[in-house]
């Protein structure tokens, strides 16, 4: 038996023994997702147990080195773990910006001390992170950010304001872009720093969205002190890290997994006549959409395979982000049409408090957050097609 085969058998057995039954069905909504953090309220004993057991093996972040709380798995082992988890429909034990974003950045740009300090807490779900990038006058144009960090010897004094900080009101620490040199041109003079959201001078204010939800905050820094040891990479060179992370984020947003096919929803709602959707115009629109959606799904597959084969994703991730988010907006416009006036309820049990309409409105942010569609198209035009500025 090969090592990998043995790993598979052991993994299967361990999961069988350790994954609670209630964790063996897909998350039904926001409430089923474990974000971790100091103030996280577990939805159930099982949810807590599942996190602890997986974290004990480093399997919340399977490919991170063991010394930083990871599982130290090889790519092949990680693939097997994924397969085995899917086999029993096991939920992800932990979801966080620490895992997706800060972790990869620290692994690449952090010092050994920084990794030792922060990564294990991410892996165990003890600290929940948020991202401080956008500012009121620097939305798509991150390079013109104004939040100031003054060098005060062993700490930086931070003043300024961030906006669109996802879940800042629930986060414990922030990774933040700040301007450390105001005389420099836009992209230089920016640094990447970490600090505790409980520091004096930090305050957050949730932003109510048109969907009625408040996943984002305005975040204010008023003479906040950030220890110098938490500056990641070189001072004034934070832009390099930010760019690296944006690429990660883009790939994540473009790749939204496989939702229920639109046509299945339509079949349920509208029924078939002679094997075809009763509404022929909607059938046509859904077919057009699904042709794009299936082709896009294969594009993600191709991009991943290309990356595995050592290809450089580069600005291709901008294409995935742009195309995926536009598709998702289109999908939700069609879901509205499939559901007719029922989709337009906003309150009441029948419609689960307007879930269809609120989800539809939520998608409008897809092509704004994480770099607008316009910014992605600019990047494609300039970096891939090499069109002149």
């Amino acid at each position, binding site marked *: 038996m090969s090592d990998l085969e043995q790993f598979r058998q052991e993994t299967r057995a361990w999961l069988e023994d350790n994954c609670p039954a209630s964790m063996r069905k897909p998350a039904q909504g926001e409430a089923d997702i474990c974000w971790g953090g100091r103030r996280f309220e577990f939805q159930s004993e099982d949810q807590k147990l599942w996190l602890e057991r997986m974290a004990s093996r480093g399997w919340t972040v399977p490919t991170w080195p063991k010394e930083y709380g990871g599982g130290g798995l090889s790519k092949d082992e990680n693939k097997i773990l994924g397969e085995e988890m899917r086999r029993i429909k096991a939920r992800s034990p932990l979801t966080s910006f620490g895992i997706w974003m800060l972790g990869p950045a620290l692994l690449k740009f952090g010092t050994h001390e920084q990794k030792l300090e922060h990564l294990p807490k991410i892996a165990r779900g003890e600290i929940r992170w948020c991202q401080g990038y956008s500012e009121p006058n620097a939305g798509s144009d991150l390079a013109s950010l104004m939040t100031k960090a003054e060098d005060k010897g062993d700490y930086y004094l931070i003043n300024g304001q961030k906006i669109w900080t996802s879940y800042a009101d629930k986060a414990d620490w922030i990774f933040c872009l700040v301007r450390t040199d105001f005389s420099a041109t836009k992209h230089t003079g920016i640094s990447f720093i970490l600090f505790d959201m409980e520091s004096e001078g930090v305050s957050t204010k949730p932003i109510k969205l*048109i969907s009625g939800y408040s996943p984002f905050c305005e975040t204010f820094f008023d003479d906040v002190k950030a220890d110098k040891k938490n500056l990641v990479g070189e001072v004034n060179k934070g832009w390099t890290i930010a760019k690296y992370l944006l690429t990660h984020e883009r790939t994540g947003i473009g790749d939204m997994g496989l939702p229920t096919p639109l046509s299945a929803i339509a079949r349920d709602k509208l029924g078939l006549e002679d094997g075809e959707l009763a509404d022929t115009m*909607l059938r046509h629109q859904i077919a057009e959409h699904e042709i794009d959606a299936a082709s896009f799904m294969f594009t993600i597959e191709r991009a991943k395979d290309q990356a595995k084969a050592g290809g450089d994703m580069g600005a291709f991730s901008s294409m995935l982000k742009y195309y995926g988010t536009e598709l998702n907006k289109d999908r939700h416009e069609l879901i509205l049409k499939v559901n007719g006036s029922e989709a337009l*309820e906003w309150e009441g049990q029948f419609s689960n408090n307007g879930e269809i309409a609120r989800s539809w409105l939520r998608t409008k942010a897809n092509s704004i957050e994480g770099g607008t569609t316009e910014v992605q198209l600019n990047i494609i035009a300039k970096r891939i097609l090499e069109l002149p500025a």
Partner: protein
Amino acid sequence: MALILNEEQQLLKETADGFFADKAPVSQLRKLRDDKDETGYSKDLWQEMAEMGFAGLLVDEDNGGTGFGYVGAGVVAEAMGRTLAASPYLASAIVGASVVEAAGSDAQKAELLPAIASGETVVTLAIDETAHHGPEKTALKAEKAGGGYKLSGLKTFVPEGHVADKVIVLARTSGKAGERDGLSLFLVDRKASGLIVDRTVMTDSRNWAKMTFEGVAVGADALMGTEGKGMDALEGALDRARIVVAAELLGISQQCLDMTVQYLQERKQFGVLIGSFQGLQHRAAELFSEIEVSRSAVLKALQVADAGGNVGWFASLAKAKASKTAELATNEAIQMHGGIGMTDEFDIGFYIKRARVLQNLYGGFNYHADRFAALSGY
């Protein structure tokens, strides 16, 4: 007739624009929503609208209205679309008045029209029973009983149905769901015994109602028009209402464009006004063009509605085109505003929400594109 507003209509437009900007800015709808107002509109505003003559635009002078007609009604609806003024204008002054005018007996007209025009009585129409529009699909039954009728079944998504005084109900007196024949119109009191009304708060913060008819008894005089021929009377009135809905959608689209253009003129990014980016300029110019083209379809349909006769083709044209344009306008407005457009604090969200409700009301783009093709003979 020239395809422009005449002087009288132009004057009405200016009056209406000024009135709603002054008396019913978007902040009024926001407040109604935040207060969880159970009426969903300001009764004071509605009274003032009636005093302005807006409730009686389709009611002739003998019955206390101005008889201004559909072009006027569309002009006022467009102004309401620009500020999202909430009122039972569409339900009562447009749909209610049109159906009463088309199907009512002399007695019903004499009773209802002056009350609609004065704003005293709110009338609404209950047609749909499923999530997808289609009058012919009506299954709600009206059986002869004791010299009158007994109504049983369900109506859903009835605009302002939670507060309307009178409900005009499309019911089946014979045949089966899907057939055009056998449908009849009945005038029912909202407080009638056996009629259960459930208020539903919609995405646009306005209120619709589900109505359950548990053997609601009405007299023979509740019948409007000829038994079994309800669709003949209803269709022309409904088509006219669709055109007025298209006019409100036009107001929404125009307002979205105006707000967006203003934002593009003021917002800076990368050190320059974002309105100088050609990508955004071209999209704004395309949107402008679609709105102007929609405006023509709507105005033409309103004029034809005033001229009388069958307006089905024009109504489906106007409703389809205005719906498609409103979808584009609201989506582009949100996207071009960037993050700020996503916040509840900013007004644009109210427009996209109202737009989808109106797009869907009395048939969306697909319904009317299909009907347009059928009426064009293909």
